[in-house]
């Protein structure tokens, strides 16, 4: 795309943003992005479009595609933070040194109930992690995974655990198949 004159750029950008708004709204709604977080997504995509205006040949397609991608990234990040929060909390709960036996037993029972709903592989992996306090390398060794792929596998199992933990009132799908090494 040829470089536009300044008034022309302003005008073109304004028209584009106005015309693409209905499609962008549809994207945000389909991805169920909370309105309070939509501003960041829109602003970031629009600013990138402004800076790269000269290099983008189909600005509307680019903008819609970019917002879609940002919506996917938004949920990926959100899921990541949530899984991390759940994981850290469970590790912390299990590590409390002087918890009364009764409390510990209840915690183990509750945790096992959630783990029981996971696939065998995820259950085994998380039992090693939470029950025996294994680190990622030890889990990989024990379960026959490569060290390079254990993080990915663990994350998938943590996502499954988090879904189970928050699952209520509707059917929750098990993680797709067994985690595959590599």
């Amino acid at each position, binding site marked *: 795309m040829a470089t536009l004159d300044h008034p022309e750029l302003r005008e073109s950008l304004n028209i584009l943003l106005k015309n693409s708004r209905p499609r962008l709204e549809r994207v945000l*709604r389909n991805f*169920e992005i909370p309105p309070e977080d939509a501003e960041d997504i829109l602003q970031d995509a629009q*600013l990138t479009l402004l800076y*790269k205006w000269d*290099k983008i*040949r189909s600005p509307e397609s680019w903008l819609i595609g970019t917002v879609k991608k940002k919506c996917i990234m938004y949920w990926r990040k*959100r899921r990541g933070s949530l899984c991390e929060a759940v994981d850290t909390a469970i590790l912390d709960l299990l590590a409390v040194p002087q918890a009364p036996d009764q409390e510990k037993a209840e*915690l183990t029972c509750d945790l096992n109930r959630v783990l029981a709903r996971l696939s065998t592989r995820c259950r085994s992996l998380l039992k090693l992690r939470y029950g025996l306090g294994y680190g990622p390398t030890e889990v990989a060794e024990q379960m026959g995974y490569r060290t390079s792929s254990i993080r990915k596998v663990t994350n998938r199992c943590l996502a499954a655990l988090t879904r189970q933990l*928050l699952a209520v009132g509707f059917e929750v799908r098990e993680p797709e198949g067994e985690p595959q090494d590599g």
Partner: protein
Amino acid sequence: MDKHPDSALLSKFGRGRLSRRRNREIVRHLLAQCERCRRMASRYLPPAHLRGAEPSSEARRFDYGAAFTQAWRETERRQTAFLAEQAAAPELLSALLAEPFERQWALATTDSRYHTWTVCERLLDAARELGFQDPARALDLSKLGVEIAARIDRAVCGETRVNDLCARAWAGLGNARRIRGDFREGEACFATAERLLKRGTGDPVEKANVLLLKSSLRGNQQRFREAFRLLDRVLAIGRKCGDPQLCGKALIIRGFFLGVADDPEGAIRHLAEGIRDVDPATDARLLVAAQHNLILFLAESGRYEEAMRLLESARPLYYRTGDQMSLLRLRWLEGKIGIALGQFAEAEELLRGVRKELIERELGFDAALLSLDLANIYARQGRGAEMRRLAEEMLPIFKSRDIHREAIAALLVFQKAAEMERVTLGLIREVSSYLKESRATAGTRTRELR
């Protein structure tokens, strides 16, 4: 936690913004199967089956009005500053380009007026334009581009956007190094570019452009399978983003490497298809290069008449782009076709002129390859003395640059044969194709001349 956490607390939990203690309390509460809180917290999970699904009833009620207004307000505010930056860029760039390299370096690294997005972007464009015309200058400008990109204010332009531009600058530097034949350093530049891209906006077009340049490096290294894989990814991105120019570029590069990989029919097909996608108004230079290669492969397939017809129709485009290097290559091509048509005297004169200019531009490798076209004429005409002189002249060209030993060895074989007056057309073809392949790195060095 005996009491239920309120929705604000659950919202913070869902976003991973709580203290560890609070997190612990909520997770313990959820583990105890509090249905009410689990239901509330479940909205912080990604909605099931995002793609193609109808939004939930809650999402249908979302009002995005404020989000659009605020986002637009911020974009407009930045737009004003960005347009001022764009207005100042041409003058700054002219002043910079007028200076000798040492001064350019000093300005690029210390003068904050140059540390803007637009100056950097235009400098990178200038470096790319110069790529084949003046590879040494293109390399210098690419280095300046990398320095400037690294100094752009990330707080103003945004961390991820600046990472994109830095990636573009490093890929440009890698490409400039490739053109100069410095594949190893080019490789390192692309590795840096890809690292930066990962920390960038995720813009697929930016990624595609880096992949395009990298595919050229892979092709020059004779790693065609990898080059084609990269080009497939570029094609997929181009189609997804509705960018025919990107698709055209990928097809043209693929066509070129198919030709180098001894598949002239595949090359002709891809080049012709790619040429249809490229807009001549926006990328005339690419179009010239594509037409040039198409003519070359037509000629090499023995389709001389088609090649000549296309050359005549493309000639105005060569002159319109005004690129000295393209014109030089046009003359080289005319010389090659002249040899094939038996017009040896005209071809020799053309090729001698081109060779002289290639040497002046320090393009030793191309000069050596062209010398083999001249050798072709001498072999056909049985001009042993000229052949010997040509062979003697070729070696210093090679030694003047960092060309690896195997390529020099190939030329020594040629020189020896010339001394003994035993150069055949077959040997010329062998040495020529070996020299092309020997641009590759260690992977291809094991091949021996037959």
